[in-house]
């Protein structure tokens, strides 16, 4: 059963520190998403990529957040500097779109970030 792998599972950091979250999408998937989950806001889309190119990052605070796909097997989400309000669970999801293929997306287990 193919899975989306996210690391680390948990991260506690001090305010002002840099945080990097990683995601390994399912092999062959061409679309990758980053979501942030909080009790107040639910699931917010931060950014998404198709064939490693960013398609939409309008949900991401640009001054401190950045998302990249250095290669097809790795997506990263960085926060620098981190703030307590960034505390949330960050989910990565991947899927296969286009060429007549249109499936649901598979989610990773998430990274639970706490900024103190």
């Amino acid at each position: 059963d193919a899975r989306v792998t996210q690391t680390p599972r948990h991260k506690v950091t001090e305010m002002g520190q840099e945080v990097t979250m990683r995601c390994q999408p399912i092999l062959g998937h061409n679309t990758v998403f980053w979501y942030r989950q909080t009790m107040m806001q639910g699931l917010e889309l931060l950014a998404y990529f198709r064939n490693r190119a960013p398609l939409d990052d309008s949900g991401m605070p640009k001054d401190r957040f950045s998302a990249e796909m250095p290669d097809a097997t790795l997506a990263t989400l960085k926060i620098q500097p981190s703030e307590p309000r960034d505390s949330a669970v960050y989910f990565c999801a991947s899927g296969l779109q286009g060429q007549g293929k249109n499936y649901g997306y598979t989610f990773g287990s998430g990274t639970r970030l706490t900024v103190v």
Partner: protein
Amino acid sequence: AQRVTQPEKLLSVFKGAPVELKCNYSYSGSPELFWYVQYSRQRLQLLLRHISRESIKGFTADLNKGETSFHLKKPFAQEEDSAMYYCALREGGTSYGKLTFGQGTILTVHP
């Protein structure tokens, strides 16, 4: 702009009772709707896609374009159905593939 609304943040029912989780959407194109489920502190899992017209774990959902709704229903709720449920809309056109979620509904099924 696309929007997905789940009006109930919390929903409680007793075991064996029918349950309906509401979802309304706003989208100018032809929508593709999904239901995802998240059990306690686990990853989101795909429950249903409207184009599949399937029943999973006893749940069904019908897309009503006239009412712009995609409500999730189950005739007899079970305790193991307790979870967070998210309705989601996938866009077409220039934002092809973009998936937007509602706020989620926490379902609690009491024994």
